[in-house]
């Protein structure tokens, strides 16, 4: 059994770190895991993607053509990955930077105003963690407290003071989706 998650956005959105948090959590839960930044033509700036694969057995390819879940932090990422997700896969979209609805009907998708939520929590940099929380609510690839521990153990020193906020962000993302699923976010 293998989970493949792509997190995509542009530089500065904490895309790579979000993926690493999942990877740490998976490792601490004794899973096999790979994290790999994806290569694009541009050598710097522009888009930033990473692929995280979580599995019970030895992982083969660290990259997949059709991931099971995608976190799209902006419009270009949505446009690029929506068509690639496996059938009935999961798609978490940062509504704040996306002005369109999701075309595919088979997907389990959520549009979440992550930027606004982050700002209301008091720090724009929390957007990525909110999205992770949302993912885990939509598709529980890992127990959420494993991710909390990962944050605790691996948040860069200089951001340690932000730990409580990160917990909140994670839960906020989770809550949002739960409500969504219960049809409460109207």
């Amino acid at each position, binding site marked *: 059994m293998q989970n493949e998650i792509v997190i995509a956005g542009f530089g500065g959105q904490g895309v790579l770190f979000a993926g690493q948090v999942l990877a740490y959590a998976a490792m601490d839960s004794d899973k096999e895991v790979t994290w790999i930044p994806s290569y694009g033509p*541009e*050598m*710097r700036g522009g888009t930033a993607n990473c692929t995280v694969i979580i599995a019970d057995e030895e992982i083969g390819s660290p990259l997949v053509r059709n991931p099971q879940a995608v976190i799209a932090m902006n419009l270009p990422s949505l446009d690029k990955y929506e068509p690639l997700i496996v059938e009935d896969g999961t798609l978490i979209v940062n509504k704040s930077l996306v002005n369109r609805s999701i075309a595919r009907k088979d997907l389990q998708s959520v549009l979440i105003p992550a930027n606004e939520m982050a700002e209301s929590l008091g720090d724009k940099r929390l957007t990525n963690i909110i999205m992770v929380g949302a993912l885990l609510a939509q598709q529980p690839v890992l127990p959420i407290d494993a991710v909390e521990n990962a944050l605790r153990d691996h948040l860069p020193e200089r951001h340690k003071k932000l730990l409580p906020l990160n917990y909140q962000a994670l839960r906020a993302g989770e809550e949002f989706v739960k409500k969504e699923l219960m049809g409460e976010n109207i």
Partner: protein
Amino acid sequence: MGSNPTVEMVYKRPDTFTEVSTHYCPGCTHGVAHRLVAEVLEEMKLQDVTIGVASVGCSVFAYNYFDCDFVEAAHGRAPAMATGIKRVLPDRVVFTYQGDGDLASIGMAEIVHAAARGENISVIFINNANYGMTGGQMAPTTLPGQKTTSSPGGRDIEQTGFPIRTAEMLATLEGAGYIVRRSLHDPKNIRKAKKSIRLAFETQVRGLGFSMVELLSTCPTNWGINPVESLHWIEERMIPYFPIEDFKVSASVSQIRV
């Protein structure tokens, strides 16, 4: 006394530039150096006879921006490649555009010998005190104590010696016709820099030997400061070690009036 005004265009993007947006980081003065070369090619009407030699560094894509023939050299070998071109096409104008890692580190033998031979080419040498493209490692031009990704504790002169003053060193060679250092950190210096680039190409067109303009340039991204602060960094940190001077102006070059 009144006057009915007419409009004049004081500055416009040179035609020798392609309509391509550069890949350089915002505020990186590689772009200024490009612009100055493009302006000189335009003023001297050399566009159709010029062959540029891009090097390996952030300027690796330089050939996308100049609207003239171009080749892309191996890391450090631009002067050798330029020599090959110039020797078979002596009536063409050949210039290389090289960073400090490319020219002063891996390419040291090629630049010294091109200068020693008095190879009739022009070299635009961008000194930004580090290796930009690969993520800000130490270059031969990195200042003492300067932190880079390969000198995390700051450049230790005990271990790695002092920065190389390339222009000064090459100026000791007979073959050098025109070798100066300029800076891109303010309008006045940019004007001086352009004049020198012009002189470098004039030197070549007149067959007066090897010419090189070393340009102090910013790397905001790897220096970790914003573009404006970067200009100050050149002025306060680099210029004291890398003086803005003429190191070699051969008798015949000094005759040139532009």
